[in-house]
């Protein structure tokens, strides 16, 4: 009876898939000798459950591409609602959809356009779901704009791997864009380099020191950050800043402009204020199209074996793309890091150079900016004792005095520490090595 209820399913006419079938039915010069063309591949396409994380610029493209690659059972997660500034690239949304959930609107649109595909939306956070949920998928594709969410899903899929059960290994295909640049990468958890191994390829921008904002601004951005971080706290701290509220942005803009005039700094604009406060990254349809298609091309090859794919252990797993000066891609094998806090078997502590004279507070603040850690709410313990805990409140209070102490008072040179952060389902081990001289 399952046949009858699964809609079009396997039994539909293949006339629609004429082009795809040329590839599915014919071996090529690079297909494996053991590869069986035809029916088994069609079967895989119709049965494999694919999870798409993100229904934004990349997600819209990914859903379209997967549906037109012949996949039938697609799930999509996104917690966001549609904003007017999405319409220049997120082509499944119309003006009338502004305010609705992205995952829901995107799923309905692709289902309507491509007959026979089932798309199941979930409007919420990836953290709402547990391992059992993620275990049902054959593969996960990410089109996200946040590093935290990527690291979370990466740690989750690595943690799910059970060597006794080959089905527990979920390939992760990840795309990211910024302006005319982007990357597509494939991760086979525990077998190839993971997102945490690659974290230093995506270093965060250095923050402007507070003293510059407070006393010696030089750039229009400094004045905006001052309004954002200092003036708002001083004058409107009872109101939660909402960067989508035009009144709030206008207030910040006027504050910043006035400060800029005091210091003779030219260049503060409304648009720049919005950009700085919301940390806006330029985004266009063409880059999203390129990166999403590259991801989906790999997904298709991985599941149908119609050609070699990125991520096969010992081969290339990462494609870097830049489009501002001609077109340039660099496809290479990113190697696993033996001390990766997520995927290394031994769970080795990663060495971290620190200044013995800096305080614990300074060290913890620095963790947010270090390319290899990027932790925003860390709690830390040494082999001997708890050094600082963000919660529960009484432990926080108990450990707070340590924040002012120097590292050399709390730890010995080369001592291991374990750091946890509510954003990640794991602990990070570091070996703190004191800087010489």
């Amino acid at each position: 009876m399952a046949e009858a209820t699964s809609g079009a399913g396997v039994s539909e006419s293949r006339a629609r898939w004429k082009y795809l079938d040329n590839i599915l039915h014919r071996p090529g010069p690079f297909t494996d000798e053991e590869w069986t063309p035809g029916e088994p591949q069609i079967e895989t396409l119709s049965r494999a459950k694919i999870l798409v994380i993100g229904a934004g610029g990349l997600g819209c493209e990914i859903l379209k591409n997967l549906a037109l690659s012949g996949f039938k059972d697609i799930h999509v997660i996104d917690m966001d609602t549609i904003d007017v500034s999405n319409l220049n690239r997120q082509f499944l949304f119309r003006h009338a959809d502004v305010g609705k959930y992205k995952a829901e609107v995107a799923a309905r649109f692709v289902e309507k356009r491509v007959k026979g595909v089932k798309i199941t939306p979930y409007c919420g956070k990836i953290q709402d779901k547990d391992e059992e949920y993620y275990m049902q998928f054959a593969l996960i594709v990410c089109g996200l704009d946040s590093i935290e969410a990527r690291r979370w899903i990466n740690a989750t899929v690595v943690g799910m791997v059970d060597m006794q059960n080959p089905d527990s290994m979920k390939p992760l295909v990840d795309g990211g864009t910024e302006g005319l640049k982007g990357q597509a990468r494939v991760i086979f958890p525990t077998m190839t380099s993971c997102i945490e191994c690659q974290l230093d390829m995506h270093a965060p921008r250095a923050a402007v020191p507070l003293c510059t904002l407070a006393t010696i601004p030089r750039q229009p951005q400094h004045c905006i950050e001052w309004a954002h971080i200092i003036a708002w706290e001083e004058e409107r701290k009872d109101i939660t800043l909402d960067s989508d509220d035009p009144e709030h942005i206008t207030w910040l803009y006027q504050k910043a402009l006035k400060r800029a005039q005091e210091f003779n700094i030219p260049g503060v604009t409304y648009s720049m204020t919005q950009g700085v406060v919301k940390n806006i990254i330029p985004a266009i349809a063409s880059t999203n199209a390129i990166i999403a298609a590259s991801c989906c091309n790999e997904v298709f090859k991985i599941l149908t074996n119609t050609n070699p794919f990125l991520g096969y252990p010992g081969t290339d797993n990462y494609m870097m793309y830049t489009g501002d000066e001609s077109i340039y891609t660099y496809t290479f094998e990113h190697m696993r890091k033996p001390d990766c806090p997520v995927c290394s078997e031994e769970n080795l502590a990663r060495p971290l150079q620190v200044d013995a004279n800096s305080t614990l507070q300074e060290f913890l603040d620095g963790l947010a900016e270090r390319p290899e850690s990027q932790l925003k709410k860390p709690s830390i313990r040494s082999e001997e004792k708890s050094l600082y805990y963000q919660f529960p409140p009484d432990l926080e209070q108990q450990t707070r005095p340590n924040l002012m102490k120097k590292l050399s008072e709390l730890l010995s040179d080369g001592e291991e520490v374990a750091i946890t952060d509510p954003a990640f389902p794991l602990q990070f081990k570091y070996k703190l090595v004191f800087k010489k001289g």
Partner: protein
Amino acid sequence: MATDIPPPVQGPTAKERKYDRQLRLWGATGQMALENSHILLINSGPGVVGVETLKNLVLPGVGHFTIQDSAIVSEADLGVNFFLEEEHLGGYRAEHTCNLLKELNPDVEGHFVTEPIEAFIDEPDALQPYTLILVTAPIRPEILTILSEHASNALVPLFYIHSVGFYSHFSIHLPPAFPIVDTHPDPETTTRDIRLLKPWPELLQFARAKTEGLDTMDADDHGHIPYIALLLYFLEKWKEEHEGQPPLNYKEKTAFREMVAKAARSLEGGEENFDEAVAAVLKSLNDPEPSSAVKGLFKEPECLLVKQDSPAFWVIAHAVALFYQKHGVLPLPGSVPDMKARSKDYIELQNIYKAKARKDMAEVLESVRFLERTTMRETPIEERDVETFCKNAAHIKLVRGRPFHVVQAGEKVQWGDRAKSLAQSLAFPDSLLPLYIAFLAFDEFVATHNKNALGGAPKMPGEDHVEVDTEKVAGIAFKILTDLIAEGNTPLEEEDFSTVETKLGEYVKELVRAGGAELHNISAFTGGLVSQEVIKIITEQYIPVDNTCIFDGVRSKTAVIQV
């Protein structure tokens, strides 16, 4: 008090809100250029790559687009083209893809032509309305030749695109002189011209004032001297000890760097301005010599001989060349990197650079006006254009467009002046030139095969007979390969030749395997690349592909070659 009244806020317009994320890349002028353009797509085959390209142009708000396509919507279209629905079966593909694309952006005007290409192109001035033309394979060589001639005569950019199975290619035929002023150099990898080795009096005066009594200065003052002033101060000292010469080579620069580093006061955490000075030594202590590309620009015939109707670009280029001849440097761009400094000092420094940049610009402008008078130019060049040119002078780029290959049945493919360098590149392990050759062979097959005996649509290899067609295409491809090697007069080592031959054979096999099919992913990818290049060309910003791009979706690699 009047000064306390906050300035009136002009919030963003509805359009600025919708296009916010792209305006941050190409700005209002780029957007305007996009909105004033009219793109023609001449569609064929499965017809996906062109439509995917248009999708990425309609979304950011291209002015008009027109789709020429005489195909009727079939069941197979629904499995590969996102801009068609079941109810369109039996209708015109041009009409329905056009309508569904229009839904993406109400600001865009879409049109369609269902006439066959042969009839359409035969009408007088058929191509006249379009500012840029996209053509997808398969297409008859006669048609492609007409389009190529139009591109040459009307100076209209023309794209020729293949998307077949896991492979794709596109070539761009640009006008013979396509200059880009606003190239958006990457601020992280390009060094800013701050003229430390060619300071002018006002800058030197500033440096002296800020470093006076350096040794006895109080800690706070010492830690806030802008690093540009520090470097100029230490350069003066260095020159005194080195017969008036600045540090010239790597060894001397390292010694100079050491000298600056030693002068920092040893405080906890060091002095940030000294750290910045030390970090800038190797990058900034260079003669602001223009790149060979820019110097080459000054020697181009259009630059040397300015005429009454010369494009503004060449008149300004000539004026900048005169400036360079006289001063040995380009006009100062005028921007200063951020650095540790007191607000007042930084603004003062910024103003010194800006004032110098304005002075340089005024000199260039004066030459421009002089040229206008001597050549009896009718409309004056806008001051703003001169300003932008001066600001970007170091990064200006000139692309020399030329026609791409149009493969004619039974005729040898000619490689001209590029034969030698291309033949030499064949043996490079990452070369995708063999894939390009496979596409040329694909085109020759198309030129000689029809879907039915009465003509009709061109037939693509592998539609019915994979093995026979593979052999045919491989035969053509090997001939193109050996012809290229002969024309380039660079015989390969036997081993290299057989590697290239094997690679070419594999590409042909994989290409024919598709039987002319488009895979949606590959067409979406290629549509992304092509639309990006279209935007660069229309906005005259960033640097476009010169002139051919190839994508291998089996290995996920691209390559750009000049053919």
